[in-house]
């Protein structure tokens, strides 16, 4: 574990906290008295400040500190939550995110400097909320003032010794609190040299009364070191409240020692001898001390005949005063135990480095290949026991594979939730009232995909808000409710995940789009095009029928990029729309990018893999149909038209087709097609190896894999091939086909 890794953890952790903070602020906007939400916001600022401080990220600490103060006031009810404050805090959250970005940039210092003006501006706004309160609290004073600054005798000479004299009488409870005087002595020894130490235990009661867990010890230390008083006080910081500590700097006045002796509980003569024995007082100085001591006694007795008054130690008075002061402070602080435990979902999760997960899945992939190879060898060997073991192995490997892949699945809800803020902000910016409705948030998808669909989704949402949903006035005119609705939905469908972005806006204008498409030469006026086909034109580069190009969208740059991103993930986009009612964009993406269950087919000498989840059935191509297929490119499958693709033709395979041919019927997005192949070779689970850059543009192929035999097989891009089969069908021969179907009946 290195500092860099810890720093990365901090950044990731902080971003997560900012997500929570934003969600909590949005909640507070709707329900301003939600204490859980307030606590969540506080915790985010508090944790980022605390952890950031450990790394020394001063700018971050300074900023979150001011945030924390305001949030603390909100928590305590001193500041009320209103729309302006929420907006300010949202802006602060964004600023913290910016500061986190500054950390990862090469020239961090410059980035932070650039962010400063915004920092100051926001802090100034935050401070306005703080100014409305009572003046700052009195500081709890450090020293309970039983040191030699209190003088009852003034003036006089200073002692020769250049040692610090430290006197401590430990409180009875220090040992119970885990504070051992030995620790402080050892610590002090690291700061300099302990020239002498006397351990006193006059305070220890007799055996019966002695509590073995109490502390009855006192120490008198002479210490030499290049330190200041604060440092020495710091050594005893943790027992300061319970113990009596007196520190006399080097060359203190003789009078100081007089006061010290007076303050200490032990016998004065003994103390005097001790001080001389330790070396801090010379013989002469001790005599001087005793002389002054005597004078003090006389004076005090003269003023006040009551002997008790004389013995009352200033230390006691001050300790008493100190305690009163701390009570005052407590009252002023108004401590109440308001801190509730907020409900935290006890999800037992662990954080795993994404790289480690990838490694695991790679290994599982290799395992899958080897297990296939074992299966093959077992078949060839024909040994029953071996076959059974290989079968068990395959089953277990499949389970491991599924478990491993499952590790990478995350619910899409995380992604969807980010759009709450986007919709809110964008809606305001565009002057539209839009409600975001989410469904299917527990639908899971591969984590690697989550990051890649964020941008496309973002663009689709922006588009829907900008061009789809009308302004409240327009909506009212058309009899719609002024509040528009944007729906994000997700669900699973045979091997895919479907994500829908739906709005109840004005819908797409088929005619306008067609006109523009013809304008740009993408279509001709007499081309038969389905609605779906027309809508697809909006995914072309530079295509935009937008009357006004807003800041947000309308430049026509976005939709084609969306299309490309989705296709890069082996997904597809469908567009459904109804004028006046709304538009739904339907994204279909494969569930996983790593391993697939495949169905192996042979064409000539090559092997191809068809993703098993899309295989509907396999049938033999009869002799009759063979002839027909050459002609028309379809067959009659139980009364339905099944468009066909001869893979041999698609991939220009050399050689003669085999005597028997087969059809693999596949289905995708509600469409069916048949692939004509030579041999059907059974199920295979395979690891998908991506195609090299050279082969990426090959249409009809989406990846490659290594079979158990060591051969390479190409993985068919079923969606593309199905569309090819169906597409060529639609545009040319459908009317003719349907006519023929009727004939056949």
């Amino acid at each position, binding site marked *: 574990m290195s500092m860099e890794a810890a720093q990365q953890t901090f950044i990731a952790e902080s971003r997560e906290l900012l997500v929570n903070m934003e969600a909590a602020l949005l909640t507070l906007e709707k329900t301003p008295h939600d204490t859980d939400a307030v606590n969540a916001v506080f915790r985010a600022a508090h944790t980022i400040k605390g952890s950031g401080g450990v790394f020394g990220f001063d700018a971050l600490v300074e900023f979150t500190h001011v945030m924390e103060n305001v949030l603390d006031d909100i928590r305590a009810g001193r500041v009320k939550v209103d729309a302006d404050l929420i907006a300010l805090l949202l802006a602060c959250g964004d600023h913290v995110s910016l500061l986190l970005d500054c950390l990862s940039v090469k020239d961090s210092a410059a980035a932070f400097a650039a962010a400063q003006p915004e920092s100051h501006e926001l802090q100034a706004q935050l401070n306005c909320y703080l100014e409305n309160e009572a003046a700052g609290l009195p500081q709890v004073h450090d020293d309970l003032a039983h040191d030699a600054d209190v003088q009852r005798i003034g003036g006089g000479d200073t002692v020769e010794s250049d040692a610090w004299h430290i006197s401590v009488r430990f409180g009875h409870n220090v*040992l*119970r609190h885990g504070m*051992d*005087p*030995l620790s402080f*002595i*050892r610590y002090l020894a690291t700061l300099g040299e302990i020239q*002498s*130490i*006397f*351990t006193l*235990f006059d305070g*220890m009661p007799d*055996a019966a009364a*002695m509590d*073995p*867990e109490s*502390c*009855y*010890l006192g*120490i008198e230390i002479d210490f030499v070191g290049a330190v200041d008083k604060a440092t020495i006080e710091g050594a005893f910081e943790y027992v300061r409240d319970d113990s009596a500590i007196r520190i006399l700097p080097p060359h203190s006045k003789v009078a100081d020692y007089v006061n010290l002796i007076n303050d200490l509980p032990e016998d004065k003569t003994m103390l005097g001898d001790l001080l001389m024995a330790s070396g801090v007082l010379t013989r002469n100085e001790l005599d001087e001390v005793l002389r002054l001591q005597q004078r003090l006694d006389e004076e005090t007795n003269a003023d006040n005949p009551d002997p008790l008054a004389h013995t009352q130690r200033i230390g006691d008075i001050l300790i008493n005063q100190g305690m009163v002061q701390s009570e005052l402070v407590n009252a002023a602080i108004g401590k109440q135990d308001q801190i509730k435990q907020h409900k935290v979902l006890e999800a037992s999760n662990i954080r795993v480095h994404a790289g480690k997960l990838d490694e695991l899945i790679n290994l599982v992939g290799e395992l899958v290949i080897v297990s296939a190879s074992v299966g093959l060898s077992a078949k060839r060997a024909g040994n029953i026991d071996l076959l059974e073991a290989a079968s068990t192995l395959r089953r277990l490997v499949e389970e491991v594979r599924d478990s491993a892949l499952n590790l990478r699945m995350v619910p899409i809800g995380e992604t969807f939730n980010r759009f709450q803020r986007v919709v809110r902000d964008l809606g305001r910016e565009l002057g539209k009232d839009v409600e975001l409705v989410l469904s299917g948030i527990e639908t899971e998808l591969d984590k690697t995909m989550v990051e890649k669909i964020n941008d496309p989704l973002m663009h689709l949402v922006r588009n829907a808000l900008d061009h789809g949903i009308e302004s409240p006035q327009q909506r009212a005119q058309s009899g719609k409710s002024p509040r528009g609705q944007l729906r994000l939905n997700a669900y699973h469908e045979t091997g895919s995940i479907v994500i829908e972005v739906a709005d109840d806006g004005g819908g797409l204008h088929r005619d306008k789009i067609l006109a523009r498409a013809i304008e740009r030469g993408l279509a001709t006026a007499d081309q038969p095009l389905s609605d779906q086909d027309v809508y697809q034109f909006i995914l072309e580069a530079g295509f935009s029928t937008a009357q006004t190009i807003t800041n947000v969208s309308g430049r026509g740059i976005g939709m084609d990029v969306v299309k490309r991103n989705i296709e890069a993930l082996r997904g597809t986009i469908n567009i459904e729309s109804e004028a006046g009612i709304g538009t739904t964009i339907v994204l279909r993406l494969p569930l996983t990018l790593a391993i697939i269950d495949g169905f192996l087919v042979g064409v000539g000498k090559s092997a191809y893999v068809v993703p098993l989840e899309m295989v509907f059935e396999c049938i033999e191509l009869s002799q009759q149909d063979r002839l027909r297929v050459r002609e028309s490119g379809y067959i009659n499958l139980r009364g339905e038209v099944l468009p066909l693709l001869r893979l041999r033709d698609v991939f220009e395979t050399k050689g003669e087709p085999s005597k028997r041919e087969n059809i693999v019927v596949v289905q995708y997005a509600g469409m069916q097609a048949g692939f004509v192949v030579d041999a059907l070779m059974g199920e295979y689970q395979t690891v998908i190896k991506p195609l090299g850059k050279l082969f990426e543009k090959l249409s009809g192929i989406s990846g490659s894999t290594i079979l158990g035999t060591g051969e390479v097989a190409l993985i068919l891009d079923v969606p593309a091939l199905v569309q090819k089969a169906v597409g060529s069908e639609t545009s040319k021969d459908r009317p003719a086909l349907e006519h023929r179907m009727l004939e056949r009946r």
Partner: protein
Amino acid sequence: MTITLTEAGKDASKLAVNGALTIYEAASAKAALLEALTKTRELEIDLSGVDEIDSAGVQLLILLKREAVKAGKHMRLAQHSAASLEVLDRYQLASYFGDPVVLSPDA
């Protein structure tokens, strides 16, 4: 922690303390130590087995010494382990206990 009488006699006894002599053991150690003192006139505490000792432990030794002196008995520490030596040195209590310090093998 164990406290074992290695030599028991009305005139002189030896007590071996083994293990930790800290605040966690202080309550039970106090009783054992004081009782051993009542049964003899000269008590030697063998510290060679004391691998951990804190101020509570030291206080018990101080108590024992003081009780011994009060009762006109003798008490001494012997075979100081490294741990006990360090602690007694920090407090400069060697002279209080008045023992010639003979280092035990591990010290």
